[in-house]
């Protein structure tokens, strides 16, 4: 697993719950690093253990914590890079959903070695989509639900998003479009002021 993922968990914990809680989580396992390196590779198991340790420290179900992580990744001020990269997917939320079909290629081109679990979008009607995910990273679907919900707010779309029972070894997330232009959403320009860098990598 690329250190970026562990770093995201680290940043999420510190920004949401403070430095002390992060110290408590790190204490639980000698393999946990107080400061993960974005570009180094760590064993996958370490990341899954880290999520479990965080949920235990917060005394909350892991899926809830991971969904909050997904929300944090696109809506926190430190996560602007990921939010922007995802919004390049389309001008509307539906365009964005369809662009998720390219997410594996897009993430690989942005950061080779990230190796997201395979995912694809199924369009069942103009208002009903399924995001289908391979089960490579346990809990990844919860993170994606957080991301999808936060981006719906970002686009100003009103949606209903729930996980549905896994089928043939694939996780499924159901997305129902209720109102594509429910609110104004947040502004997105193709070339942000200062787009030439400077943002933290908030992935």
């Amino acid at each position: 697993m690329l250190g970026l993922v562990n770093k995201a968990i680290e940043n999420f914990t510190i920004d949401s719950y403070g430095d002390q809680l992060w110290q408590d989580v790190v204490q639980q396992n000698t393999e946990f690093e107080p400061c993960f390196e974005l570009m180094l590779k760590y064993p996958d198991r370490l990341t899954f253990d880290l999520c479990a340790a965080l949920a235990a420290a917060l005394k909350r179900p892991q899926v809830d914590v991971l969904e909050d992580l997904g929300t944090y990744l696109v809506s926190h001020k430190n996560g602007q890079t990921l939010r922007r990269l995802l919004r390049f997917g389309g001008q509307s939320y539906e365009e964005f959903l369809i662009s998720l079909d390219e997410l594996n290629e897009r993430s690989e081109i942005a950061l080779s070695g990230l190796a997201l679990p395979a995912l694809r979008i199924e369009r069942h009607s103009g208002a009903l989509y399924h995001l289908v995910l391979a089960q490579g990273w346990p809990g990844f679907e919860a993170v994606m639900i957080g991301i999808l919900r936060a981006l719906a707010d970002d686009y100003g779309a009103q949606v209903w998003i729930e996980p549905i029972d896994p089928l043939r070894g694939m996780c499924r997330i159901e997305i129902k479009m209720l109102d594509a232009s429910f609110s104004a959403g947040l502004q997105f320009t193709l070339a942000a002021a200062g787009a030439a860098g400077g943002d933290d990598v908030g992935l």
Partner: protein
Amino acid sequence: MSVFDILCPCHAQLSQTGHILHLGPTLAKLLGDTPALPVRLLELFELRRPHPAASMKVLFALAGQKLTFRLRAAPHTDLKAVLALLPSGQGAVVNFSFGIAIQNVVQRHSLTHSDFAGTDLAIEMLYLLEAKNAAMEASRTLNQRLQGAKNAAEEQAFTDTLTGLKNRRTLNLVLARLSEAKVPFTVMQLDLDYFKAVNDTYGHAAGDHVLQVAARILVEETRAEDTVVRLGGDEFALVFYNVINATRLAKLSQRIIERLEQPVPFQNNICRISGSIGIVVFDRRSEASPEVMLEQSDQALYASKKAGRAQHSFFHCGAA
């Protein structure tokens, strides 16, 4: 919406006389205040590559080639273009794009997804640029951190931990650098006299304290561009950059020895030491290696000790 507006929204349709008959929506956005049509293309855009053209005849002759235009009005955006002639003298179509400066153009003209054709790779290009910048930023901060750690490790490797002075490794580097640079300089070797007695009588803590006091004196008596080294034990070396005047060096040596001889109180005891110094001067013509330089200063130091300590001697060829 015309076929062209969908396929290439940044185009202009031209009459046979070079007047713009129709502007694609993105090109119209680029021009800001949409000009009253028809207007001559070359009135709005200056052709820069492959060569300037004042007449449409010249421009039409460049059909099919890679062109570069510049907006005549501010912000004078550069645009890539290609011109295609329509059949049987019905004029031409020019299609524009933004090339490598796309991020600036998009920002300057507030372009959005819908300003690009569905097949245009511009959005992917912008996505890539941002992804690249984010990755570069991450690797830059990592490099900075590594650089900081490397500097700290090097500093440690070149520093004597007790006194904070440089160590023998640094001395070799400094001597090699100075002799290569052909700068005149002086090497002084200094041994503390009676140090062993302090150590034996009052203990190692007292000895360490005396070494630290001596180190501070040496630093105070030298300039920032000079190098002060603890070679080990009670042996020190000083390198004076661009100083070879014998009188000045003699006075400096006397002052160092006088200061070293001032009693150093430690706990309930008074420690007394002195110093012997050997000096060797290297002018621009010297071609001695660092090893030879140290050997020569060592010979001069030996002469000082032999003559009764607490004094300095200069190295002279054939003197020892």
